[in-house]
């Protein structure tokens, strides 16, 4: 097998991976960034509404208020040390992106434009704040392209269209690199590195209806899980209130930030009933549940009463064309309505994975081991949507993910620099190091099979959609687990028809489905175990939050066992925000 040697291997060229890469390349380290798609095709490109940081350009602001909102938004499951760090660093990383060239929209005084987003307040729960920095409604695109451009300048080494298969570790558990498949040639490549960083993004494709790209298949989580690392808080999936009915494509919360609002079949602005103060800008979990209830209780819109409407024409043509041009494009193409004139039909749609690979606030992966629940894995890091730091807890606030990518991309890079200094050499790769990865590749060479990957893929998505959606209950979850087990057995019996070496996407999709299965199991098992409702995890049979028993993080192991660890309620320097009832 071909081998290459680098100081750091970064898997993923989204916002998180490229922010970290930029830092390390600029510091003179030899960095390999592997991505299964060309960097600017990563899903960060689809982020619309913006990045949240307390710049105070529009309304008076303070990072501590941002921290309060984030802790409350997380339904108190977020780790307050990490949340403090993120909110405090916010302005700095956003200014830095501006200096890198990100074309932010501007205010009349030339400063960065900021818009209101859900769950944002001034003065610890007071008036609405405008905290989300935006480049029209294409902030992710602008950010991802800017980061790629700076990495070109910094001469980062990209391995484009290389699919990472599995981590390579030694007997002590230290990460030594990764085995990847060169998709164009169909050959494996062993990338040796003194530090390995996972930045593989989300896994929204476990659900049938999702705002996520086809590539969001949780590969990093699959790799971590197969390496014996448990996955944290996987029951917490954000359903975005406004996905285009049918297509699933996202309509940004920025629309409601700019003054848009939801109406039901009776033409009622129903969020006034659910969140009298914040209304359409309440936390996403709150708004998504409200829509689900309206539809469930027969107050939906259309002949089938299966959606609600997002009205924005009153914002005015000039504002829409200036601030929401991408949204108009999407509505025209995927909903066949022109939002200048008519409302957009929307439904809650799976959107963001709050859980992921457990890390501390400087990006290093931590696992329960000899010394306690959070022992660091030497040489292994995770950032971005694939990681669980955890800053989003049980519910992420809009605009906080792009922030998380930059802050923890930078923090992990800094920690890696320290680690590299302390570890000038790495132990040799044991002979059997790549075996796990090679076995996975060999498995799909098998030509006989009674099942088709596409069928199992579709069924897995259907199971998760109907058994682990916005509202959950014990029987439905248990039935889902049994069905998922069947689907997994079918996947074992599947074969692909394409055995070409060259750009074999059938093989890629089969390998991706294996990762999705890991994610789906961790999700539904964690959801069945948590007998309370918190943030995005809503149990019909346990409708209340239960801090006495459940103020803790879930850790789902691959063998089906589940552990828990305490929430870090103590921030780094300020005083803690103790849990209280959450209303908007």
């Amino acid at each position: 097998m071909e081998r290459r040697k680098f100081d750091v291997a970064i898997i993923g060229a989204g916002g998180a991976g490229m922010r970290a890469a930029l830092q390390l390349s600029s510091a003179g380290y030899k960095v390999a960034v592997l991505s299964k798609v060309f960097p600017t095709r990563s899903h960060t490109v689809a982020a619309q509404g913006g990045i949240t940081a307390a710049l105070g350009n529009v309304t008076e602001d303070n990072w501590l208020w941002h921290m309060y909102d984030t802790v409350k938004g997380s339904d108190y499951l977020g780790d307050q040390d990490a949340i403090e760090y993120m909110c405090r660093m916010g302005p700095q990383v956003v200014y830095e992106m501006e200096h890198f060239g990100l074309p932010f929209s501007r205010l009349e005084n030339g400063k960065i434009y900021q818009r209101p987003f859900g769950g944002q307040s001034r003065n610890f729960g007071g008036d609405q704040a405008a905290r989300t920095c935006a480049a029209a409604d294409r902030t992710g695109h602008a950010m991802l392209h800017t980061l790629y451009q700076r990495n070109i300048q910094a001469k980062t080494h990209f391995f484009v269209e290389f699919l990472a298969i599995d981590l390579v570790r030694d007997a002590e558990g230290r990460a030594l690199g990764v085995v990847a498949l060169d998709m164009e040639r169909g050959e494996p490549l062993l990338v040796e590195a003194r530090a390995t960083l996972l930045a593989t993004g989300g896994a929204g494709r476990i659900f049938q209806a999702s705002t996520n790209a086809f590539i969001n298949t949780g590969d990093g989580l699959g790799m971590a899980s197969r390496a014996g690392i448990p996955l944290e808080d996987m029951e917490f999936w954000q359903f975005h209130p406004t996905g285009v009915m049918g297509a699933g494509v996202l309509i940004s919360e920025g629309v409601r930030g700019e003054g848009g609002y939801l109406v039901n079949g009776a033409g009622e602005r129903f969020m006034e009933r659910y969140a009298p103060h914040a209304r359409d800008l309440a936390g996403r979990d709150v708004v998504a549940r409200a829509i689900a209830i309206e539809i469930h209780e027969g107050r939906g819109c259309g002949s089938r009463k299966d959606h609600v409407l997002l009205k924005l024409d009153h914002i005015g043509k000039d504002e829409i064309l200036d601030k929401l041009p991408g949204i108009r494009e999407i509505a025209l193409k995927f909903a066949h309505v022109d939002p200048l004139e008519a409302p957009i039909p929307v439904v809650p749609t799976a959107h963001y994975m709050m859980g992921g690979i457990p890390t501390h606030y400087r990006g290093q992966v931590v696992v329960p081991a000899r010394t306690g629940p959070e022992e660091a894995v030497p040489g292994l890091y995770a950032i971005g949507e694939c990681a669980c730091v955890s800053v989003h807890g049980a519910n992420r606030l809009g605009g906080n993910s792009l922030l998380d990518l930059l802050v923890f991309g930078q923090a992990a890079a800094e920690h890696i620099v320290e680690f590299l200094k302390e570890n000038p050499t790495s132990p040799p790769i044991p002979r059997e190091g790549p075996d796990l990865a090679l076995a996975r590749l060999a498995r799909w060479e098998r030509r006989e099979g009674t099942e088709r990957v596409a069928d199992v893929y579709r069924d897995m998505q259907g199971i998760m959609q109907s058994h682990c959606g916005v509202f959950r209950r014990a029987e439905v979850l248990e039935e889902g687990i049994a069905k998922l087990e069947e689907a997994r057995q079918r996947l074992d019996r599947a074969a692909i028809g394409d055995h070409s070496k060259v750009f074999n996407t059938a093989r890629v999709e089969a390998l991706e489905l294996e990762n999705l299965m890991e994610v789906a199991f961790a999700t539904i098992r964690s959801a069945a175990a948590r007998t309370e409702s918190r943030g995005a995890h809503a149990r019909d049979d346990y409708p209340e939050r239960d801090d006495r028993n459940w103020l803790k993080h879930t850790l789902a192991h691959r063998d089906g066992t589940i552990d828990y660890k305490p929430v870090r309620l103590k921030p780094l320097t300020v005083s803690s925000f103790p849990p209280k009832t959450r209303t908007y």
Partner: protein
Amino acid sequence: MRFSIYRFDPDADASPHMKDYELALEAGDMMLLDALILIKAQDDSLSLRKSCREGVCGSDAMNINGKNGLACITPLSSLKEPIELRPLPGLPVIRDLVVDMEPFFKQYRSIKPYLINNDPPPETERLQSPQERAELDGLYECILCACCTTSCPSFWWNPEKFVGPAGLLQAWRFIADTRDQATSERLDDLEDPYRLFRCHGIMNCVDACPKGLNPTEAIGKIKGMMVRRTV
């Protein structure tokens, strides 16, 4: 619906051929990419790139009934049957609808697509008025799909030397940015019989861009600036 799709697997085929497919469905609201996914579920050996399925990542550019476009935002109902699909023209084919984009990206990288500003950064943001920022609209939105560049005859003949419409659009994006200080170096770099001046204003690029961007206009502005600085 009937499809005729370019197939070539260098591992198995001596030469490329067109293969016919049929799907029993009504176009309805479906996009071309949805149909390709159904075809791939029947025949998993068909290779194509795809990701965002909403026209923002630039993965699934291909030649659709003779015109370059993105499969994910091309409504099936807009297409005449049989729908003929080929890889983007002018780039080496890796397999089926997957082309080697490196010649395209190489030209993109050659224009130094990053902000150059040698002043020490201020404590907060650099200021830019909304009017100055508006100069970047219609430029920064490029998704690097290559629909334009691979429809440009000048690029077909000189892929090594002519930057092509996408690269030139980005060159102008940085020249037009009030925060960038490298205008004259950027113009020097393009002052060359090939890099910029192979563009003959044929406008294929404008017609091909699925994001409605206008590389020809940007090229015109660069040329105008060059003329102005010599007089």
